[in-house]
């Protein structure tokens, strides 16, 4: 693939154990898929307000919330990221 369609990945949470677990898993999933974009972790509440999500943690890919309020396992995160890639 010449062009990487995933430009940014952000995990947004309130700092609870679920949120950090999701961050670690998302990093692992991105690494396994060879995604070059850096996975960032943020606890910025202003972002939560902007995105209009009611549940955290949230995985945000290219600025769009992908999963909110659950802790999918590694394979599911990989599948979700692969979906975003192939949809682009």
């Amino acid at each position, binding site marked *: 693939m010449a062009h990487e369609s995933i430009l940014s990945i952000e995990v947004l949470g309130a700092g*609870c154990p*679920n949120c950090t677990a999701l961050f670690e898993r998302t990093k692992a999933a991105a690494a396994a898929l060879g995604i070059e974009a850096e996975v960032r972790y943020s606890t910025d*509440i202003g972002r939560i307000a902007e995105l*209009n999500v*009611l549940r955290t943690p949230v995985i945000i890919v290219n600025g769009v919330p992908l999963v909110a309020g659950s802790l999918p396992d590694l394979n599911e995160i990989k599948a979700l990221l692969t979906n975003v890639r192939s949809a682009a």
Partner: protein
Amino acid sequence: MDLFFPLQAAADWLTYDVFSLSPDTHLSEAVAFFLYDATKILLLVYFITLLAGIIRFHLPIERVRDYLASHSLFGLDYFLATVFGAITPFCTCSSIPLFIGFLKAGIPLGVTFAFLITSPLINEIAIGLFIGLFGLKVTLLYVATGIIIGMVGGAIIGNLKMERFVADFIWNTGTAANLPHEQQRSLRTEWPSIRREAGNTFRTVAPYILIGVGVGALIHGFVPADFFESVLQRFGFLSVPVAVILSVPLYSNAAGVIPVIQSLIAKGVPLGTGLAFMMGTVGLSLPEALILKKVIKLPLLLTFFGVVTAGIILVGYLFNAVVG
């Protein structure tokens, strides 16, 4: 509880036949109690957690928000908010996005707090433990109490007009589009992830439950009946507030605390005092307070905690007076 008769029989068989403990000793009483209660409660908690997952699938929080935002029904919205709060599972991590999302959708501050007060008080793990330990009647009383505390607490906060103590950025940020909504999902396709989440929750709380039931079993087996009655008499009238204050630091261990309290109640602690302690454990959470501090100013935070604490203490006195 007849439904659990086979478990009781199995626990007795293990205790008296397999372990050959002689009946009527402290040890055999404790062992039989532990085997029976631990299995029963773990089963109940697992099934109720699964049930909560199914409810969450059918009634996602986004739908609750939209419903509450479009139905301001002369105070009935306080009741609905608490009922929704009771049936939607609560996680401290989500209290901030919930709080922000509700206010931005135009749900009044008081109604939002009614939801936030009841949601942790009535959660699937507490319900599973209550049914297992106290039976259905006390569980229903507990649920009704949690709803009333939420409604009254929310109404008080609503009437105090404390909107100015909410962080400004909540009112100022624009509203982005909703989650790009997932394709039509069915319960069947979602079932594996519902089961996985229930399994995760279960694995997190199971050790606490086992420890709690273990301590409870020791109390059941070894502590003389009515022992705590004499201890508590020294605190007298103050025992309810003392119980609530002591409960606050135990937040994260609610699953372990409830079985212990049940055995204390069996040994002479009044039901109201015990109930107040358990409600304090699940409803007054310091981590939640610290998280909410990011979106509300101190006067509102203190009012929120004050109202819930007062409600729980009142409930304690009330139960002691009525059931006492």
